[in-house]
């Protein structure tokens, strides 16, 4: 099992490799957009401008499926950012994997490896690491540095909860009474809003990408016989990453539309 380095600050736990990958992903997205949006023209678009306009059109198309086109235009920035961030994030773990293998763990490294939100979890981690260190057939403790940020649950939960809170904010801004009636009067709606949506939206993305990375790590460990399955699985993972991006953006737009369209 790949480990992550974490550190604690003011009682908050931070996953170092996840933060590195967030920043790398964001940088890739920004550089991509900067490269694509140079020399924009209102005339006949060419090459890269076509691509970036297609992104915008695509996002507007998704949003436009659930709300009026005028309203949908207001969510292009959110949709485009989610689309590119999740897509790039999903694919980054496929193009590259940087791991380090440690057969000896210093005390400070052990601290970073076992940092967890509870002492019990820290103790469980320490046990796993001890086992890995003393397993003569294993690779020692494997620390991952480069992986999909979306393979980290904190990342997908943060995105999903931000999006859901934003959708509730839009609903409350539209009409507090309508929002409250819709959310609290029907127990099924209440369950949906406070349990189902906040769990399914992030876990769907995380589960797909995490499972993909676990299987890639496993196939890499198999050796020469794993090559063909690995290639097949990498291709499939590109597809899964794309589809999951589309699903996340679409559901975001659905949840927003449920809050801003007339309640039923």
């Amino acid at each position, binding site marked *: *099992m790949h480990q992550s380095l974490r550190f604690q600050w003011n009682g908050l736990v931070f996953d170092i490799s996840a933060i590195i990958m967030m920043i790398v992903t964001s940088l890739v997205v*920004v550089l991509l957009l900067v490269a694509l*949006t140079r020399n924009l023209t*209102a005339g006949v678009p060419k090459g890269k401008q076509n691509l970036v306009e297609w992104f915008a*059109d695509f996002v507007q198309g998704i949003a436009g499926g659930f709300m009026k086109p005028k309203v949908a235009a207001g969510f292009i*920035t959110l949709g485009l950012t989610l689309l590119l*961030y999740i897509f790039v994030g999903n694919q980054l773990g496929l193009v590259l994997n940087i791991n380090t293998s440690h057969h000896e763990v210093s005390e400070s490294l052990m601290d970073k490896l076992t940092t967890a*939100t509870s002492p019990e979890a820290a103790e*469980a981690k320490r046990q796993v690491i001890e086992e890995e260190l003393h397993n003569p057939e294993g690779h020692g403790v494997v620390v991952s540095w480069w992986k999909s940020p979306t393979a980290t649950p904190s990342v997908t939960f*943060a995105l999903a909860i931000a999006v859901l809170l934003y959708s509730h904010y839009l609903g409350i801004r539209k009409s507090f009474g309508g929002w409250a009636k819709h959310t609290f009067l029907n127990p099924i709606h209440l369950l949906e809003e406070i349990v189902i949506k906040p769990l399914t939206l992030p876990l769907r993305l995380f589960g797909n990408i995490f499972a993909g990375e676990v299987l890639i790590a496993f196939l890499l460990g198999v050796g020469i016989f794993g090559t063909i399955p690995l290639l097949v699985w990498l291709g499939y993972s590109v597809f899964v990453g794309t589809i999951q991006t589309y699903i996340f953006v679409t559901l975001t737009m659905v949840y927003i539309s449920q809050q801003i369209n007339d309640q039923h």
Partner: protein
Amino acid sequence: MIDFGAVSLEWGTMLVQLIVFLILLLIVKKVAAGPIVAIMEKRRQHIENEITTAERNRQESEALLAEQRRLLDEARLETKGIIERATKQANEESSRIIQEAQETAARLKEQASAELAREVEKAKAELRNQMAGLSVMLASKIIEKELDEAAQKATVDKFLAQVGDRL
């Protein structure tokens, strides 16, 4: 917070992700979404303008075409009228000329025959005058030569022959 070994939720990581995402949102809006939406809107308006202009131009040219057709028809009609009138005039002119010519010819013929009759009359008068003179001359010659029947007869015959030749 929640920890299942490899799968754990950490407030710190979530907070960083939230901040990173908000910053990314701002950058995307500034760098891409804003300019792209603006440019697409500008293009939409431009195309709308072009379509409106094209539609207006089409209507204008249709109106012009109808106008031109009408003018052409008018001109054609006018030409037809002019040709008809000209033909009619020419026909009238030619018949007038022919009539005039006929009249002139008739007049000239009349004049010529009148002249001829006058000439004949004149000649006859002159002949008569000469006949009187010749008769006197004949009588005087007869008186001069006494009355010789044979000679007289010969003289009269001769004279008559002379007159016949003259006439």
